[in-house]
Every structure is written in structure tokens, then in C-alpha cells.
């Protein structure tokens, strides 16, 4: 079994991280467009996308039967499925793989829920190291404004309601995201995440991102695929 580390597959893996409302998904979408236009075989791998484990996760969440430990483990199971059946085969095939959230999301979320940081990191040690990991840094208030403007109702686990931080979902969400933010900041030096200032104009962030990705793709062969 491969331990967490540099992969030697021909493909490349780029991931984005950040709290909800940091704009990371928009940036990844723009990167995707550009990579395709440049002729790279590019594939999105989405978090929580495995059909096999999905049903268990969905039920656990719906019935609110997840504890911090089972929440952590069911998501790790789902991630492992994605790693074994999606990400690794794609990397072997030479694709540029894009992930909206990666193991760092789990590290932040699980540690805020009280899991031992070292245990969670070890749990995910089967994951391959990304070619590039971008962290979209944004102040809590900016992110909160972006999210709460555009949506109605927060989900139970999403708002961290299981932690009993506050009675109101919105207040709970704010406290929860604030703690997640602190965990992300700890991980920047630990995992050498590339920090992008997510308060800059969208185009400016994208320029930074493309420069870095371009440099890392310098030797990668372009896998021509028809759109």
C-alpha cells in the first residue's frame, strides 16, 4: 500500500481548499476551462461522489446518527473509494485531475469536531500528494456575506449543529467556519499550501493560479481529447 506521498503517475493533481464562500469552486471552474482550451485532458473529481458509500453517508446525515468519529470515517471511506476508483486510475492515464476540496477539508473539519489531528492525518495517509494545492484565504465576514446572500437554510452538519455551538444555524455556522479557518491557517505551513488572496478580483486570482499551474505542467504531455 502506498503511503501518503509524491505519486509517480504521469497525470497531475491540482486541488483547491478554503471555507465555503471563498470562491474556490469558481476559480477551479475557470482553471478547468483554460486547461481544456490548452489541450490538456482534464477531469473533475468531486468530493462525496462515490455512489457506493454515498447512500450510507446520506442516511447517516439525514437521521443525524453520525458522531465525530463516524462522520470522519464515513467520509474517509468515501474518499478512499474515490482515490482507488477515480483519482489514481485517472493519474495513471495521464489526466490532469482537479479536486474541489481534498484531504485538508477533512483535516480541518474532523479536528474541529474533536478528532485527534495526528490520527486524522494518519487516516488519510493513503492519499496521493497533490501537484499543486491552493488555499483561498478569505476573512470570515466576507465569506459569510457571500454565502448567506445567495441561499436559504443551512444543513445540519454543514452548519456544525452537531457540535452544539449555538441554537441558531446561522450563528452555529459562523462559529464553526471560524474554527475551520483556524485549522486551515495551521495547515498552510504544514503542507506548504499555495495561498491565494480570495478578496482580490476574480481575474487576478485566476492569473496567479494559471501561472503556477503552467509552471507545474511544463513537462506534462498534453493528452488531446475531443470535447
Amino acid at each position, binding site marked *: *500500500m502506498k*503511503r501518503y506521498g509524491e505519486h509517480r503517475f504521469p497525470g497531475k493533481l491540482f486541488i483547491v481548499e478554503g471555507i465555503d464562500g471563498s470562491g474556490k469552486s469558481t476559480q477551479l471552474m475557470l482553471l478547468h476551462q483554460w486547461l481544456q482550451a490548452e489541450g490538456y485532458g482534464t477531469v473533475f473529481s468531486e468530493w462525496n461522489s462515490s455512489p*457506493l*458509500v454515498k*447512500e*450510507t453517508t446520506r*442516511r*447517516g446525515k439525514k437521521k443525524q*446518527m*453520525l*458522531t*465525530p*468519529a*463516524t462522520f470522519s*470515517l*464515513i467520509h*474517509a*471511506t468515501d474518499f*478512499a*473509494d474515490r*482515490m*482507488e*476508483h477515480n483519482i489514481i486510475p485517472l493519474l495513471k492515464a495521464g489526466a490532469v485531475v482537479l479536486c474541489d476540496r481534498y484531504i485538508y477539508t477533512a483535516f480541518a473539519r474532523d479536528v474541529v*469536531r*474533536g*478528532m*485527534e489531528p*495526528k*490520527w486524522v492525518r*494518519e*487516516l488519510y*495517509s*493513503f492519499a496521493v500528494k497533490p501537484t499543486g494545492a491552493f488555499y483561498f484565504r478569505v476573512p470570515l465576514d466576507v465569506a459569510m456575506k457571500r454565502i448567506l446572500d445567495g441561499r436559504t437554510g443551512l444543513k445540519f452538519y454543514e452548519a456544525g449543529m452537531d457540535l452544539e455551538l449555538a441554537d441558531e444555524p446561522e450563528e452555529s455556522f459562523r462559529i464553526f467556519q471560524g474554527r475551520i479557518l483556524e485549522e486551515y491557517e495551521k495547515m498552510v505551513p504544514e503542507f506548504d499550501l499555495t495561498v491565494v488572496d480570495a478578496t482580490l478580483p476574480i481575474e487576478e486570482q485566476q492569473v496567479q493560479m494559471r501561472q503556477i499551474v503552467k509552471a507545474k505542467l511544463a513537462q506534462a504531455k498534453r493528452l488531446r481529447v475531443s470535447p
Partner: protein
Amino acid sequence: MRETYGVVLPGMNLVDLTGKLIVIEGTDGVGRSTQINLLKPWLEQQGRAVLETGMTRSSLAGGGIKQAKEGHTLGRITLSLFYTTDFTDRLENEIIPALRAGFVVLTDRYTYSLMARAIVRGIDPAWIRQVYSFAPKPDAVFYLRIGVDDLIPRVVFSRGFDYWESGMDLHPSEDMYESFRKYQTALLAQFDVLGEEFSFEVVDASADIRTVFERLRAGIARVLSGEPREPLFAVPRPKETVEEAAKAEEAGEAKVVEVPAPNKVTAAGE
């Protein structure tokens, strides 16, 4: 206070768990459930409340694992973690509350089987030990030991070879018999390794049901009365380990020998 093999899960209070956690371990078809079906009424006759639990029985993940296994589509790491989820759900929602209520918890396998099966499938042994390091240490682990030659007729003449118990996912090109023999041999060897590390009490499972039952009864009676384990039951520690521990003690490295080696996960976490 009950100890774990390493980390403690959030919200898991290990104080005042007055019940007893008794594990029956052993490979597939060795007669674990037969024995548990005898032990449960025997304990209840003595006025002991018993919780019986086993793998893939959690309300959270039990059904999902069964479905996934029917499709044979899960990767090795994924399947291992799915089992861990199932175990954790039962630990938090059944085992711990029962121990708190003073029950005797009889569990048909524990983390050891899950580790053995994962390791045989090429999972990193240090990783899987670390993953399960939150498991509370049981009061006793009775390991029903059998050789592969004694095991085969039992399986053939009861339920037949099963896909997973034959490790067909590992040797898909072979017939069930060859695969079963190869897989179970590897699994039994892994159990012996874990048995030493986690100090299993070994019961010879090639004996008849009655004899095995009497042996287990004697062992469990001893656990319930709080008497120390008979040295006869113990698997001797390898000589080197004993010598090393003695050396370390002389050198004043108290930390290393603080916990007698058998119950400590030494391979994990470094």
C-alpha cells in the same frame, strides 16, 4: 478507567465502564457463533446481562457493506475503512453504553479480525493499527485457533466456500479450494502475529464443541471473578522482546516498559 490502544474518541468517556468486554476471535467457519450461542444463555442463567454483537451489524454501515460486497466492487482501502465505520458505530452506540450499564459484552470478533483481513490484502500493518488505535482494550480475547486442514472440512460440509472468506478478490484466477487454502493460511499466520502482540488467550478449536465451550466458560468465569489470567493460557512473549524490555529497564528507560509489551501497539504511529 478503561484504556484504549492510543487515541480517545471525542465524547467517549471511559470512566465507570463497569461491564466486561469479552472478544471471541477466530477465522471464518471456526465456530465462533456456535460458541457465542452457548455462552450467552450460560451467562444469563447466572444473572449476567449480555450484549452480543458482531461485524457488519451496525445500523449505520452494516447494510451498505453487505450490498457493496455483493457487487465485489470496493477497493481494499475503501472496504477496510467501511468496516472501521461499522465497528465505530457499534462501539459508540452499543458496546460502550452496554459496558456503562454493567453488561457482559460478547463480541463476535473485534478489531483484530479486521486488521488481519486488511493486512492479508496488502494494507500497511502500521496504518491499520493506527486507524484502530481508538479501540478500548478488551478484558479478554479468546482466540479459537485451528489449522487450515481442520478448517477445510468444516467449511465444506457446512456452508461451503464463500467468495470473501476464500480471498477470491485476491486470487481471482484460482478455484475456490486453492484460493481458500492460500488465503486462510495467510490469515491464520496473521492472527498468530496479532495474538502475540495483543496477548490472545488461545483455545484449541479443533476440539469438539463441548470441549471448546468448557474451555471458554472457564476463561470467562475467571475474567468475571476478576482473577488474574492463568500463566498456562498465556502465549509466551518472544525471548528477544523480554530481553530487550529487561535491558531498557536497566538503562532506566521507564517509558518503554511502562506497559507490558503484549497490549501495546508498538508498530503504530511512528
